[in-house]
């Protein structure tokens, strides 16, 4: 395991914190690390900061992610990586679409010129929405407390996608699926960063696989065209035991 001493912890939303720590390693946007809380568990987390100081932005769900959000400055953080591939570079105009903690992995892509669509359950949970200029931002919330009410794809429907040639999308798989379905016939290209159970992070356990490819080594970023031909995307996955279940 690699370890580093935490420099700073920032609260981003009521359930989400960013943890910053020094790590001399070149990493690319889209890559992730396996974060270990000794005695609790180990989970995949995207790098939300990829400069000299690295950062992760974690939402509290179950025991492991909750334990991560409780780490304090000065404590050690244990992890291994970086793992996974990166987003394709794109010169044209791109739209960044993040749902829930999915915005974490997209953060390194945001520039002052970026356009964004940020979705969450409720207003307080909109992650990194403040990183976009207000006029380039669309927000969507399940409860309508900010922006459009509904799921992320409702936000897309409200926009003119014609001005974009690329989309970078990260969030729950069903959200990604609805986005893919919505743009499937369009000329707009897209990179989707997927999230599935990951037990090993290094391409051996088969828990994260989709269509024979491993999210952890051949993903987590897949192109629109790869996913259009997918048999499992948005439909089925293996549970923690290996049981094939509907999404």
């Amino acid at each position, binding site marked *: 395991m690699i370890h580093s001493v935490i420099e700073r912890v920032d609260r981003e939303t009521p359930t989400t914190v960013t943890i910053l720590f020094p790590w001399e390693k070149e990493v690319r946007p889209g890559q992730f690390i396996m974060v270990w809380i000794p005695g609790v*568990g*180990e*989970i995949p987390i995207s790098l939300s900061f990829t400069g000299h100081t690295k950062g992760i932005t974690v939402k509290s769900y179950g025991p492991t992610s909750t334990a991560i959000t409780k780490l304090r400055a000065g404590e050690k953080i*244990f992890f291994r990586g970086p793992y996974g591939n990166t987003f394709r570079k794109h010169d044209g105009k791109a739209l960044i679409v993040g749902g829930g903690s999915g915005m974490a992995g997209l953060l390194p892509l945001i520039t002052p010129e970026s356009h964004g669509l940020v979705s969450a359950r409720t207003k307080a949970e909109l992650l990194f929405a403040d990183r976009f200029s207000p006029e380039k931002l669309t927000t969507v919330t399940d409860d309508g407390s900010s922006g459009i009410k509904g799921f992320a794809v409702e936000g897309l429907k409200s926009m003119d996608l014609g001005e974009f040639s690329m989309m970078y999308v990260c969030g729950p798989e069903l959200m990604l699926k609805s986005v893919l379905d919505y743009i499937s016939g369009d000329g707009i290209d897209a990179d989707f960063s997927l999230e599935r159970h990951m037990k090993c*992070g290094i391409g*051996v*356990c088969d828990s994260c696989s989709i269509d024979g490819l*491993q999210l952890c080594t051949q993903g987590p970023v897949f192109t629109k065209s790869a996913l259009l031909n997918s048999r499992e995307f948005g439909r089925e996955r*293996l549970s923690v035991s290996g049981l*094939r279940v509907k999404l």
Partner: protein
Amino acid sequence: MPSLKTTITGIGLQNPLMLASGILDENGYTMKNILECGAAAVVTKSIGREERTGYRPPIVAEVPDGLLNAVGLSNPGIDNFGNEVGIALQAGKPVIGSIFGGTADDFLYVGKKMEEYGANALELNLSCPHVLGVGSEVGSDPELVEEIIGELKNKIEIPVWAKLSPNVTNILEIANAASKADAFVVINTVRGMAIDIYARRPVLSNAYGGLSGRAIKNVGIRYVYQLYKETGKPIIGVGGIEAYEDAIEYLMAGASALEIGTGVYSKGKGIFSEINSGISSFMESEGIASIKELVGAAVQ
């Protein structure tokens, strides 16, 4: 061009390289993908009677010369695995069903289902906890091994391979108990563990794990050689195969076919075609026409 074809317990293989059990072989599509990447056959993840979630992560630890793992036999249960076997079989190559259990009855139940699903052979993972013993493994109890294999050989048509553990005082004793098996698969992982000195704690959630990869290659070679020499049974060699030289070393030690696990992690899925082309060049430059000529060539 020398031929890479080989046969093991009557099953024809395009080349000697199969995917080892437990690595990328839980999802049917993944197995199919591995077969398309050049593996001659796949061995499924070890499947038991009941669904099991296995241990919580960390279930693997990367060590300098290999991997430690303690997955905890996670599997969907044999009743839920037919679909995956079916998908893998679409590649038109053999699929070997790895099975585990605590009793002969477990093995029979799971083995029968595997056969029905279309598996071409059974591989018995004998490294699972013994229901009666405390901490001991099925594969270290000669009587139980004999009972399991006797039962399967009576009631199952497809070949039965016994996968042996190196963590025993006398592997020959177990091999003799397993003598009704059609082939031996040698070796399973070597007992090991890793501690993180900054966390002051074992890395694997289960603390103890199994060591695989390059670190255990010379251990596997030794047991393949010994079993070939002393039993003459067909052997499938596995443990630390990462380059064509390793594959040839195993063949010369007496293996008729090979399995690769950790090599898929260290070298990627291209490992099957890379090693096959390495074996082919070696055979060409050393004037060897068939895999058969290599098998056991170094055994004195």
